[in-house]
């Protein structure tokens, strides 16, 4: 949560890495992430589209292969605060999700699963392309206040009221359940995030406001997966990683870790998207599994 000054990038990130390592190597994790996002959506869509059911429900609560229950722990927290004690299925489902992300990294959800992420990525990409630098200044901590507000609202109203407007679940539900009206709501949610990020605040939604991301950020980064900077002595200060990173405040400490010390990014804000690994033409970064890199 330290506010480390992030240098203003002077060039587009990417071309240097493509020149150094080739296009595929410079887009490896981006492609893997898009594949993962597509896969998580496809799991829910094979049923309605082709009659082959893998995951039923939505990201809020689902049942995979009529066996594995998964429930969004943020939804469940709100439900508990609204004074509803859920069925064991939902409790078990939320426990599994919590354990899974705690074992890996909380905000893995944001970069690898969340359907809003590609939209926010496109907005950030467009901003860089257009050279738009002006942005509404928002504290990164605003998302924690929104998270608190959502939980407080559940407590005060006795209903899970945040889910009325949560663009993450609105978008996913619209995509999975389809129908022109549901799809319209999904489209509106996606457009709202896109326009806000593009026109108003750089990385505004995912990086500053989203309570879902804030919640997964709180699960933290004590799991076995992290991005690290094992070859940080090769860094030539090109700032491409800062430029491409959705949470650039997390990079500094890893990059400036003392020689020989572990360089894994400890900050819970890091979504482990791996774009810094992709765009670094000096191959400074790598995924670190279980503290190794």
């Amino acid at each position, binding site marked *: 949560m330290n506010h480390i000054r992030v240098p203003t990038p002077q060039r587009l990130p990417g071309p240097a890495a493509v020149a150094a390592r080739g296009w595929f190597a410079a887009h490896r994790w981006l492609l893997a992430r898009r594949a993962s996002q597509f896969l998580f959506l496809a799991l829910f869509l094979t049923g309605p589209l082709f009659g082959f059911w893998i995951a039923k429900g*939505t990201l*809020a609560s689902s049942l995979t292969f009529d066996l594995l229950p998964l429930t969004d722990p943020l*939804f469940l927290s709100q439900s508990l605060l609204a004074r*509803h004690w859920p069925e064991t299925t*939902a409790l078990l489902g939320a426990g599994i999700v919590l354990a899974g992300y705690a074992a890996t990294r909380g905000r893995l959800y944001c970069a690898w699963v969340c359907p809003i992420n590609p939209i926010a990525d496109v907005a950030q990409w467009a901003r860089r392309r257009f050279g738009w630098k002006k942005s509404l200044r928002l504290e990164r901590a605003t998302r924690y206040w929104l998270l608190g507000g959502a939980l*407080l609202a559940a407590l*005060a109203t006795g*209903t899970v009221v945040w889910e*009325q407007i949560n663009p993450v679940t609105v978008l996913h539900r619209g995509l999975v359940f389809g129908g022109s009206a549901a799809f319209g709501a999904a489209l509106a949610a996606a457009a709202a995030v896109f326009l806000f990020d593009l026109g108003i605040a750089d990385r505004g939604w995912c990086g500053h406001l989203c309570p879902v991301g804030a919640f997964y950020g709180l699960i933290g980064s004590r799991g076995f997966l992290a991005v690290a900077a094992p070859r940080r002595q090769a860094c030539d200060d090109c700032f491409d990683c800062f430029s491409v990173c959705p949470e650039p405040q997390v990079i500094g400490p890893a990059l400036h870790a003392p020689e020989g010390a572990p360089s894994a990014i400890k900050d819970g804000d890091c979504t482990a998207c791996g774009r810094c690994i992709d765009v670094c033409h000096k191959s400074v970064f790598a995924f670190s599994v279980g503290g190794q890199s």
Partner: protein
Amino acid sequence: MNASRRDFLETAGRSACALGALGLGIAALAPESQGAAPVALRPPGAREAERFLAACARCGLCARACPYDTLRLARLADDAPAGTPIYVARDVPCEMCPDIPCVAACPTGALDKSLADIAKARMGTAVLTSPETCLNVRGLRCDVCYRVCPLIEKAITLEAQHNAGTGRHARLVPVVRAEACTGCGKCEKSCVLDEAAIKVLPLALAASRAGRHDVYGNRARTS
């Protein structure tokens, strides 16, 4: 008061204000704060309105489990919070499956698993909303709502009345017995009129209760 203490109090105070403002903003979205009770019909076993909205994950597993595609998730235009399960009786009524798959599929308990007998479900109550157009009330023998009722003779009965129009015939007036009606909506779906004369209303709208001083119920039922 030293500076750091004042800073701390200011931060704490402003944070509390921010949290309160955000909470109020989100709470204003609560359906309860919008006034009117929702008119949409809920699946069997649905808990009462506010508790339902505390429990429902809007995951749609109930709708996926419904073999007749009766249940669907509310859209923004529907009279229920978006994403929560509803059905529209005139489109697809509840077929009252004995194994109640929608309730079994609910992961959160928004649909109460203690509902074991579908006949005990109270999704709403059928009401003869337009007796002036009802063919039976007008003296014909339509009887369709009565015939399709899964609880025939329990939830809908036909009551013989004098037909003052002809002076010599009977009218067989459909009467809904709210104590037995599940609100499945088969009657509303099957009503032959262009606009159904009998409609299922949510319990909150259809409910009535006799006055506390009422002792008239001691006599035999009148109709």
